[in-house]
Structures are given as structure tokens and as C-alpha cells.
């Protein structure tokens, strides 16, 4: 329940006060927009289905010949809907958002390179630098460098898949509330941070390998 700052009417969270029409401070959260409980585990098929169903009813195309007030409302509501779907569809943005909702925003220290990854990050950056600076004419050396980078890429993918698996497990535990909440949340932040760094590494590697893949 939220209270309207204008007329003090208490009501379920919504975009505008049902009594006086003023904008309410507490916006609908993304779970609320889609009618979902604030659980981390989501069936993506069902999510898409709900998204489409609501979309059919509130999209501006439904109100093209209505007065401006209605069209405006539909535009705002649909923008909120597409935003909600986008954030909740990806487990990583979903996890981050869930933390925010529960007052557990990621701090600067949460965003620092996790200790276990520090060495990996350093190594990969070194390898990429080597590739960048290598003599393109030395075919033998190039081939072995590229080959090593490709292996690295595969290894990174394996790590990423493992991390995503850990994320899913973490989600399930938090949903079931099985375990010490504080440590589960700490875990969640750690896994999210790890995935973020792995993602950056994979992106950097892909960018360097691309010219070699295309040929």
C-alpha cells in the first residue's frame, strides 16, 4: 500500500492516485506491472505469455483514436511494461533489480574485481595485448596466438555457464528462503559481480578474435 502525497489516500501501488489523480511516488515495480510475485526464479515462457497478453490490452495501437489523455496513459503504461519485461527476462538484470527492490543495492566494493578473478582478468588482458601487438606477417606465430585465444574463449564460456548455473541455484534458495538470508544475498552479489566481469572479458576477446573469425 502507498499513501498519496497529495490527498493522503492509501491504496495499492498504481501510476496515478485513484482519488485525486496526482502521480504517486511509489511506482509499480517491474514484478507488479506483470502481476508476478517478487521471486527470482521465472518461467520465461510464462513471462513472455503474460507480457504479450498485457501488451495486447494496453499498447498505444489499441487507443489510436482515443483522446489524448488516454493515449498518454497508454504510452506511459506500455513503456513501463516493455521496461519490466526487458529487465525481468534476463536473469542478471533481474537479480540486480531484485536486490535494489530489497534495499540491497550494489556498492562500490561489490563492483570490484572478485579476488578469484583478478588473476584471470590480468592474464586475459595480457594475451589480448599480445595478439594486438603481434607481427601479422609471422603466420606461424599468429596461428598459435589465435588458437590460444580461441581456447581461452571456450574456457571463459565454461566459466560463464557455471556461474549462470550458480546464479540459478542461488535464486532458488532465496525464493525458498532456505538458508541464512544475509549470506545468500552476499552470494548473489558475488555471483552477479563474477558474471559481469566474465561478460566483459568475453566481449573483449570476441572483439579481438572477430577479424580472424570472419576470414
Amino acid at each position, binding site marked *: 500500500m502507498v499513501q498519496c*502525497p497529495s490527498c493522503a489516500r492509501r491504496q495499492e501501488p*498504481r*501510476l*496515478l*492516485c*485513484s*482519488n*485525486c*489523480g*496526482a*502521480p504517486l511516488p511509489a511506482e509499480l515495480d517491474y514484478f507488479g*506491472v*506483470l*502481476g*508476478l*510475485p517478487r521471486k527470482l526464479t521465472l518461467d520465461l515462457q*510464462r513471462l513472455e505469455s*503474460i507480457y*504479450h*497478453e*498485457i*501488451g*495486447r*490490452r*494496453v*499498447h*498505444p*495501437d*489499441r487507443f*489510436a*483514436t*482515443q*483522446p*489524448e*489523455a*488516454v493515449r*498518454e*496513459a*497508454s*504510452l*506511459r*503504461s*506500455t*513503456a*513501463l511494461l*516493455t*521496461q519490466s*519485461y*526487458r529487465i525481468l527476462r534476463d536473469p542478471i538484470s533481474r537479480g540486480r533489480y531484485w536486490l535494489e527492490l530489497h534495499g540491497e543495492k550494489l556498492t562500490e566494493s561489490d563492483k570490484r574485481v572478485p579476488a578469484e578473478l583478478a588473476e584471470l582478468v590480468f592474464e586475459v588482458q595480457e594475451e589480448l595485448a599480445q595478439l594486438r601487438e603481434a607481427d601479422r606477417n609471422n603466420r606461424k606465430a599468429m596461428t598459435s596466438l589465435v588458437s590460444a585465444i580461441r581456447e581461452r574463449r571456450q574456457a571463459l564460456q565454461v566459466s560463464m555457464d557455471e556461474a549462470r548455473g550458480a546464479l540459478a541455484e542461488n535464486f532458488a534458495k532465496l525464493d525458498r528462503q532456505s538458508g541464512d538470508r544475509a549470506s545468500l544475498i552476499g552470494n548473489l552479489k558475488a555471483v552477479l559481480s563474477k558474471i559481469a566481469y566474465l561478460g566483459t572479458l568475453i566481449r573483449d576477446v570476441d572483439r579481438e578474435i572477430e577479424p580472424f573469425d570472419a576470414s
Partner: protein
Amino acid sequence: MSTIFGIDLGTTNSLIAIMDGEDPCVIADAETGDPLLPSVVALSPDGSVNVGERAIELEPHLIVERDGQVCPVGFAGGEYGAVVRSVKRYMGLGGAELAPEDQHRYSFVDFTGSVVRFRVGSRTYTPSQISAEILRALKNRADAAGFGPVEKVVITVPAYFNDGQRQATKDAGRLAGLEVVRLVNEPTAASLAYGLHKQASGRVAVYDLGGGTFDISILSIKEGIFEVLATNGDTHLGGDDMDRALVDLILGDLPDELRVERHIWNSARREAEAAKKRLSSAEATDLVVDLPGHTVSKRVTRAEFENMVDGLVNRTLERCRLALKDAGLKPADVDAVVLVGGSTRVPLVRRRVEEFFGRKPLCSLDPDQVVAMGAAVQAGVLMGSRRDMLLLDVVPLSLGIETMGGVMERLIHRNTTIPTSVKEMFTTAVDNQTHVDVHVVQGERELTRDCRSLARFKLGPIEMQPAGLPRIEVTFLIDANGILNVTARDERTGREHSVDVKPSYGLTDEEIERMLEEALDSGEDDLNQRLLVQVRNDAEQILAAINKQLAEYGYLLEGGERARIDDIAGRLDMARRGEDRAAIGTMVEELNEASTPFAQRIMDGAIKGALEKKSVEDVS
């Protein structure tokens, strides 16, 4: 409710269509039966305008000769009128942004400005004004065929059109006296036409190669929902460029001063276009052009032509690769490929697209008409038919703001589903700063100077406070047309801030109003009458809608709302029978305002209703 028409405003040809029962139907010219209207506009020195075949007929007569001397192509406007082709390539662009080959095609004024202006004698025309003439001709065509009046339209645009190009298209509609209810992306429109009857389901790639633009869109179609996953393209790449390869062949041996001469170039272009079409069925053809002094005759084989345009086709496939990458898919993941645009008739294009996707492309619908048909389908959806169908399109280019050092900070990523909005908090850098400047750009590059400037606006006036204290929340909203809307709110007081947006592409409301006045034919109603009709339509629309809502959702009304709404509605109903345009307009706004909370409640009810349809076990 008046019919909404679907319009394909194409680089080479334009069409108008409507829904005829369950199927879209293109309205042909009442005399010739031709469904296509060439996007050719002849502007005569006396100010008269002709569009289509008539313009093509006039072309040889509006030539460039001054005192018996042949003039270079830069003076095409001169004192003798001009025939403008492919005006779409100039929409929403400044002189510096034009493709090199387009920069010297016509005579321009204000070339360095943000809006290109064509010079024709003592007059100037913006691309929107010229496009408006094409729209007017389409409107007349529908009237002549008995389908009129044409008031509301859906107009298609290349998916890759940026904000300025879209605005220019909307302006063209306005200048033609039309209400542009929606802009729809061309590949998405084409997919609607194809997906209409088949219980289509799966991933579709739409390859749209028109006269001047190329688009590739990857969509997912499921139970009537057409969802764009990614889109890419090139707004300076099309059949015109294929023609040019052949023009270069024809004019190759001529001395430079003859090569740029306007009607020589024109003759060469006409033959090039015809030859290109012939090569779709013949293995070889002769290029024959009569020039002063001699006749050019060259033989070209299909193989040679394919060699010439191979690079162009490669560029399109590179875009396809990028779109698939953004969608996270491989070519094999696509279930169907649709070809759109006359240029896809070129055998090389068909072959390479089939190779790339590993399947035969669909082209059962006429590639020249399918976009207009799709526009009509969307028009139908907007009129309330097919409640199951929904179009979820995306913004094609990232949108961001300029930050310290000219760096582009991305706020909305490309291929984000629209409508979409993002909020950013702004504050002041120095004490007592009264305004904050914001520069919005569109593009994928790191620096704003490499991106396209979209708008600059000032937030304020801000109350005098120490630096860093004010908190202004700016909402960047991209609507269903793919156009940016900006609103700002003082976070502390909740008050709306005024945002004075200066669109970078340059046409202000005042300029458009002036153009509207200038565009009046002697046979048309005077401007005031037209504006009165418009505001009366607004009044009628809102009254009809409110009555319907009061009947259906009356139980959602609260407090003294009903009395207030009835009061304003009553006064509006009286006023609209009168002639006081300002009064009617004010009352329409009042009624809008008074009914907003009610409307929002209906909307919230719609969301809630959709959720309630899901049973308890679904939501777990």
C-alpha cells in the same frame, strides 16, 4: 469513425491502400489502373506542381538551358523548374549528411544548414514539402477512385530512419493536410502483410531493398504478436545505386563537361534503370542512349552487371549479419525469409540471400506492393479490428546524451522494444545556475560528434541554489513511432519543468504553419476553415469517446468527477457548433484534463483485467 489509410511513401514509387474486408487492397489510379505512383515531382517556375507520370512527361521540358548554353547539373533548378526524384533520400537531413552522389543532383539553398532546401527559380522547397505533394497526389487518387475523404493515415518509413527522418515524414503528412496516426517500419509492415492469414509462427527475416534504402529486420511471430528482435540497414543504399553503376558505364567515354550535363545524365539514368530490369530476365542487353552528336551503344551481360553490383549486395549481407548478431541468432535459426522492394527482383540478390539464409525466400506477394498492404493492415489494427494482433517494434539506433569531453552516454540501446522510456537525473554544476543544457544524439559511436545530433534543450528556469542541489528528473520516451519525447520534472516539488526542445534537424512549428499557409490551392478552403474543421473533429472524437467510457466504466468515477466532465462536455458540445476555434480548442483540453484520472483508472483496470485472466496456478 473515419477510415485510416495505409501509405507507402517510397523512394521510387508510392502507394495508398486500405482494408477491404479481411484483405488489404491497393488503390490504383482511376484512369490508368496503375497501383504505383512514381515518386517524381515536377516543380514548375510558376509554382505549379505535378506528381507521377505527368511529372515524368514534363521532365524533358523542364531542362537546363540558359541562353542556349548547356548548364552543369548544379544548376538544375535554375529558372526552369526542376524534376525531383527520390526525395526520400533528402528527408530529415542537412546538406553535409547527404550521400555524396545526392549532393550535386539539384540546386540547393542553405546547403550548410540542418535542412536541405531545394531551389526552384525564386522558390525554395524542403524535402517535406515535396513529399507532401506526393501524399497529396495519393490522397487525390483515393478520392478519384471513390474511397475518400482521406484524413487519417499510417505512413511507412525505413526501419533504419533516425528521429529527424521520421519527424520529416510526419511533417510531410501534416503539410499535406493529413493526420499521421502512426509511422510503421517498412519491414514490419511487410511481415504483417505476409503473416496476416497464415497462422504464422516462428522467426522471420525481412530483406527490404528499395530504391534508396536497405533494411533487414528479424522478427518473431507468435499468435498474432509481431515482435521485432533486431533491425539494421543503410538509408543510403538501394536500387538507385545499381542504376548508377550502369550510368557510369554509359557515360564512361564522354568528356567530363558532357557527363554532368543534366539531360544527358537523365537519359542515361532512364536507360540504365530500364536495362537493369531487362537483365532480370535476359542474359545480356544493349544500352542505347541518343546523345547530341552521337549515339551510345554498349552491350552488357548479366554477369558483368552482377560484378558491378556485387559490392552493394555484400554490404546488405553484412547488415544482415549484424542484425542476426544483435538478435543472438544464426542464419539457420530463421524460419522464413521475405523479400521486399522492387530491387529484390535482381537475380543476384535472390541468389545471394538464399545462400546466406540457406533457404528460398518468399516472394509470393508483389514486392512493390507488400509494404503498402502491410500499412493498410496496421491501419486496420488501429481502427480496432484484429484485437489479437500486436506490433512490437524497436528503436533502430542507440540514443544518448553528450557528457564531459564530448562522450556519448547511451541511455537507450538500439533494438530496445518501443515504446520505451528512461529517466535521468540532472543537476547544476555551479551555484545559482539557472539552466541546464542537454544535447541528445543518436548513433553507435563513442563520441557525440560522430553521432547524429537529435535535439538540444534547456532545462529551467531553475531556482537559485548551490551547485549540485537541484534534482531535475528528465524522462526520455520513445513512442510507438520511434520518435523521442522529452519531459522534465523537478523531483523535489513534483512540478513539471518546461522543456524547450530545439530539434536539430530544423523545422519549427512556426515554419510548418507558414508552409501550410503557402501550400493552399486557390480551390481549397482557406486556412482558418481547415483548422476549424480539425478542431471540430477533435471535439467530436473526444465527446464520442467520453460518452462511451462513461457508459462502460461509469462505476470507476469518483467524487465530483461526473458532474465536472458533464459540465465541460455540455459546453463543448455547444461550442463545436460555433466558429470560435480557440474556445473549442481550450474546452477540448479542459475535457482531456478532467478525464485523465478516469482514463488512467480504466487503463489500470485493463492491466488488472489481463492479469486476472491468468489463473492463480499460472502465477507461482
